[in-house]
């Protein structure tokens, strides 16, 4: 009563039944409109690591052009979140992880229809806001408590890799936030609210000038495995997508987005 009044809703003697029917009618109508427009394409549900956002958007477009009747739906998040979703029965046809451990989790649960294949590699870089307000020059600066430092949470591949990189340089980082995935971290650096963070080289490239990259002295790369899953309803589409990913055309797109080849 008071809530409705306070936000200014004052209906006089509302006719309840028609109102509820109208409420129900709208979603039904919208669903119907969405469905009978054209013949439905088969959907390929692709669960992909957040760092693949830009590359997979382009890959999906080109794949759909080459395979009429197949429509790619991307679910982008941290690899660990995706593997959790898949283990809980998420309807993925394809899983593209940013590291092996998360793919192995899904593999051990028996969810893979085929072998896991590495399709790309990536390495870390320091990302700083344009102009480098914290005057960061290397990993050693991550120990500076007066700087605002962000990392990926250790559950996600970029966080695990970052921990390795910092340990390899024996740097004890003064971290201010552990972000849920690499794109969330990148957003805070882009907004100039963090002085530095460790992200993938491809993310710096994708940010297109919104952050500056600083190369680090740590050449260990992370491997991106992909596999077709039994969770989804379109394994044919899944196989087609993975084949495209590994084809010359697919590899060319990944390369343009800064990914290393699988042979590394």
């Amino acid at each position: 009563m008071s809530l409705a009044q306070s936000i200014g809703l004052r209906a006089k003697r509302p006719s309840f039944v028609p109102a509820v029917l109208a409420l129900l009618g709208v979603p039904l109508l919208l669903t119907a409109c969405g469905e009978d427009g054209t013949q439905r394409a088969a959907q390929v549900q692709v669960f992909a690591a957040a760092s693949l956002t830009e590359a997979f958007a382009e890959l999906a477009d080109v794949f759909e052009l080459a395979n009429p009747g197949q429509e790619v739906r991307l679910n982008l998040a941290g690899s660990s979140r995706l593997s959790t979703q898949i283990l809980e029965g998420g309807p993925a046809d394809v899983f593209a992880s940013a590291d092996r451990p998360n793919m192995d989790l899904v593999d051990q649960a028996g969810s893979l229809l085929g072998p896991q294949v590495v399709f790309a590699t990536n390495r870390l870089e320091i990302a700083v806001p344009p102009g480098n307000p914290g005057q960061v020059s290397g990993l050693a600066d991550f120990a500076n408590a007066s700087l605002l430092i962000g990392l990926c949470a250790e559950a996600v591949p970029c966080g695990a890799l970052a921990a390795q990189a910092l340990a390899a340089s024996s740097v004890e980082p003064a971290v201010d936030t552990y972000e849920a995935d690499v794109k969330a971290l990148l957003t805070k650096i882009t907004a100039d609210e963090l002085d530095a963070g460790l992200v993938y080289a491809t993310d710096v490239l994708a940010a297109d000038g919104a952050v500056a990259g600083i190369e680090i002295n740590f050449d260990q790369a992370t491997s991106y495995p992909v596999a077709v899953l039994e969770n989804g309803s379109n394994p044919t589409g899944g196989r087609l997508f993975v084949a495209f990913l590994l084809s010359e055309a697919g590899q060319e797109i990944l390369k343009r987005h800064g990914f290393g080849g699988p042979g590394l």
Partner: protein
Amino acid sequence: MSQHAGTKPGTAKSRTARRRTRRMPPLVILLPAVLGALLFAVPLVGLLGRAPWRQLPTLITSDLVVESIRLSMITSLAAAAISVILGVPLAWVLSRVNFPAKALVRALVTLPMVLPPVVGGAALLFALGRRGIVGQPIYEGTGFLLPFSTWGVIVANTFVAMPFLVITVEGALNNADRRPEHAAATLGASRLAVFTRITIPAISPSLIAGLVLAWARALGEFGATVTFAGNLQGRTQTLPLAVFVALETDRDTAVAISLVLVAISLSVLILLRDRWWSR
């Protein structure tokens, strides 16, 4: 409250109670009611079913969980307190003062209730971050930074929680009997005295209800906090953030933390409901 409730309302209550037990409610009402209740009960059962009962004591006494409980308590109680300090006057102004842009202000106050919390968090970051319109002058003048600090969590919590208090209190003010206020004013009480001595005591049940709603909303707050204040154990990682992180790596811990949250929220809501909300 107790003085007005004499013997008569008591007998009326028992009479309705008797009638309630005698007659079965109509099925068209009972069926959706049961379905509605199930919608809330089933997820809880799911959570309980996944609970690692044996390891529970060790899990909920781990550093991670203890620190996030402590932080959640500090930030949600602080947010509830700030909501009262700022929200009660705001509700009073909205209820008792006429000014031109009132409808707009009222809509603005309720906006966080409909806004996705992540959007609210991003908005806070762009306004109060070190490059924000308000945050930048503060940062350059004092070096003080809200994001990535416990204060930032409190601000994010207050942002999403205060509307619940303002709306509850304003509703009570609108429906309150004005005659005691007028009488006090006639007898020479200042407007401030009327507010503190007459108005506030009269609406105190609603004020407490609003306070509990605001606190509960603050306790469960996730999206605005993680976007504005980040995620760091001991500083900004509240219980909901700890669940979010643990869900990916350590599901037993995630379920254990969730149970702690459910236990705290349920016990407070049940206790307070019996005391203040039952009519």
